[in-house]
């Protein structure tokens, strides 16, 4: 089973129909484990129990960037390799990524109120993630602005690749600027500085959220394929109806 086999939408639909229940089950199991570990994790000496927002905030933030990276790979698939399902993947991923970004901003804001004393601060990390959220929304608007999905796909692919410049800016913003948001603690040179009691639940929750994204993404791709089929059928039906009507009128008969 190579990637090219998945390019056939019908095969993709049948394969994912078999796969989806396992993905859902896996997601639920991982979330159960992750939430249990998060609940069992100790309180922070300084932040108390509010540190546990981290187990939701950080995976959402990681995923907001990961989804844009997945969309960039799909964009390359559309523009470079003309993979038939690449644009379906990109269109399906955009609202999911926007939701993760929004959740990251909201949970971070709720965490910031007790910790920093403010819901919002215009520092580099928060501003660049807000810009990422705006770009997600702009991308979703672009998808819906063009009627033909194939043409919208190519325009959206270009915009996705141009917007990918924001990902390294977000990642390194806490290093390049003096920010209120704390510097990197997990993915940094010299290894993680997070204690294992917090790192393990964090990584399990990150895995759970990633599997959630994959499940939602696969389900959304299936919906998009079916939606396009409905659109084609509607267009065929409209064409047939207009053919019937024009066949009935004398003007359409050959002279």
């Amino acid at each position: 089973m190579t990637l090219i086999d998945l390019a056939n939408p019908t095969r993709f639909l049948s394969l994912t129909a078999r796969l989806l229940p396992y993905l859902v089950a896996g997601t639920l199991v991982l979330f159960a484990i992750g939430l249990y570990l998060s609940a069992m994790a100790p309180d922070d000496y300084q932040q108390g129990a509010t540190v546990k927002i981290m187990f939701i905030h950080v995976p959402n933030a990681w995923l907001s960037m990961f989804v844009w990276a997945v969309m960039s790979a799909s964009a390359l698939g559309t523009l470079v390799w003309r993979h038939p399902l690449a644009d379906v993947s990109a269109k399906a991923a955009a609202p999911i990524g926007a939701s993760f970004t929004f959740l990251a901003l909201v949970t971070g804001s709720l965490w910031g109120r007790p910790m920093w004393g403010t819901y919002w601060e215009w520092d580099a990390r928060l501003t660049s993630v807000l810009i990422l959220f705006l770009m997600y929304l702009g991308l979703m608007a672009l998808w819906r602005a063009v009627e033909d999905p194939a043409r919208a796909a190519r325009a959206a692919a270009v915009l996705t690749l141009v917007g990918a410049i924001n990902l390294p800016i977000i990642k390194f913003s806490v290093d390049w600027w003096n920010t209120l948001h704390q510097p990197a603690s997990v993915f940094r040179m010299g290894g993680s500085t997070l204690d294992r009691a917090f790192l393990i639940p964090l990584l399990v929750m990150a895995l759970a959220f990633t599997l959630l994204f994959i499940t939602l993404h696969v389900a959304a791709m299936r919906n998009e394929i079916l939606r396009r089929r409905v659109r084609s059928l509607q267009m065929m039906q409209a064409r047939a109806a207009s053919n019937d009507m024009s066949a009935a009128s004398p003007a359409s008969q050959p002279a």
Partner: protein
Amino acid sequence: MTALAALIRRDIRIAVRVGGGALIGVLFFLTVVVLMPFALGPDLPLLTRLGPAILWLGALLASLLTLDRLFTADHEDGSLDLIVMSQTPLELACAAKALAHWLAAGLPLIVATPVLGLLLNLDMVATSAVALTLLAGTPALTFTGMIGAALAVTMHRGGLLLAVLVLPLSIPVLIFGVAASEAAITGPVSFGAPFSILCALSLVSLVVGPFAAAASLRQGLD
């Protein structure tokens, strides 16, 4: 090269002669800058403090307004298809159009800055700092805006979508432009650092913009 020079000359001529072209942008710039004191009140020290930011915002919005015209006029009369089909590489043609647009629409904004600086009670140092940062930053605005203009050219009511797409990409230019201006006015913070990043943003957009715009035009026009 002759083809590109002809393209630049044609675009500048059209921009200058037809439909108010460059002067509409300057007029909008003037309007925005004049509206600010009405909203903020005539408090002169406040206007002086906010001056660079107001000028930068006005220039950003004015260049956004004129970007709409970059490709749509050619698309409507069919010359965009000719440009896409010609032997000149489309990337160079897009770069040439963006250069012409900057010369016709961006430079007048910079020329207008000293006059508008007077309205905002900015002194000589502040005004020249803002003008210098605008000179370094408006190419970035034009070339990244060209990407949005190319994406929106095939849509009939694409004007607002163009703004939504282009603004997130213009935010870094705005941030560093204002930071460089402020640094030049209030001494100790370095002017060179944000100004260098501003120049870097312009240079990067000079390269990325034409490629992205050409890709968008090719995909959007078939």
